[in-house]
């Protein structure tokens, strides 16, 4: 962070775990953060039947994939900034390579391609079986800057569990 604290990769993994656990939608689906490095954020969505978009053919709802890409790309933004800022999604493009199938967890990874003063450019990939991507996403996020980021945002991300008794 700006005042001299440099979080380690495990610190970031805990911070992004907190980030997706505070979001009701991803908390209720059980989204898990597997790994965070400055280059790449990886997540895992366990299977549940509510992810289906077609029960007859046993296919995942395409919207689940869009939701996951928005989440993983938006999370990957945070470790790429000099200090955590609130960055809403400006736009998102998702290409569907093959449908997701029932019964298998979905993995998601995203990386930041470029950070400018106003925008963070990201791209993400989803898969169920390694080497067989389901979808690709390209998400651009707006930097609201420190002035529009709530006081204590970074501290809340990195607070230790025992700070919140």
């Amino acid at each position, binding site marked *: 962070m700006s005042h001299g604290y440099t979080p380690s990769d495990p610190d970031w993994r805990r911070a992004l775990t907190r980030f997706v656990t505070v979001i*009701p939608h*991803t908390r209720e689906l059980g989204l898990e953060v597997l790994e965070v490095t400055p280059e790449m954020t990886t997540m895992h969505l366990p299977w549940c039947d509510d992810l289906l978009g077609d029960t007859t053919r046993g296919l995942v709802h395409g919207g689940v994939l869009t939701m996951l890409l928005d989440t993983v790309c938006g999370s990957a933004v945070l470790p790429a900034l000099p200090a955590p800022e609130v960055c809403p999604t400006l736009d998102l493009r998702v290409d569907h390579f093959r449908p997701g199938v029932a019964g298998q967890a979905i993995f998601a990874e995203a990386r930041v391609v470029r950070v400018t003063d106003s925008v963070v450019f990201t791209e993400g990939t989803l898969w169920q079986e390694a080497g067989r991507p389901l979808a690709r996403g390209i998400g651009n996020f707006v930097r609201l800057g420190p002035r529009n980021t709530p006081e204590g945002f970074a501290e809340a991300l990195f607070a230790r569990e025992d700070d919140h008794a």
Partner: protein
Amino acid sequence: MREGFGDLEWLARTRAEGDVEAWLALMPYARRIGVSTLPDPQGEGLLFRLDPCAGNVGNVLLPALHGGVVAAFMETAATLDLMLATRAPRLPRIVDISIDYLRTARVTPTLARCSLMREGRRMGNVRVCAWQEREVVPVATARLHFVLGDPAEGGA
């Protein structure tokens, strides 16, 4: 074949009856986020509605709906609208979606209207506009491409 999207007779019948509820019943994620339909007061088609469920929240500070849930709502709307609007029963399979987030989506009901821009032999293009207070102040717009599958062949 049992009733469902792979059953041409069922698909044609539910489509003729405008029974979108029967289609939504086979889409658990769309039901989870609370998608429903209502008659379009301005025409013959449908409007789509996203319930402001607590589970759809993506930002607890504002609070605001999850942008990905708004996208999933718009994709569901586009799919259902396309299934009603094509010349013959078709099974749409999404190819791509591009969504622009114009304003914060508050935790209030969201409505959407779809426009079928092109129905080709293989491809369909749909535009979706989503709003909360007033249609002229959209929270998001999206455009989507679908492969139009032949239901007799079990899809696309």
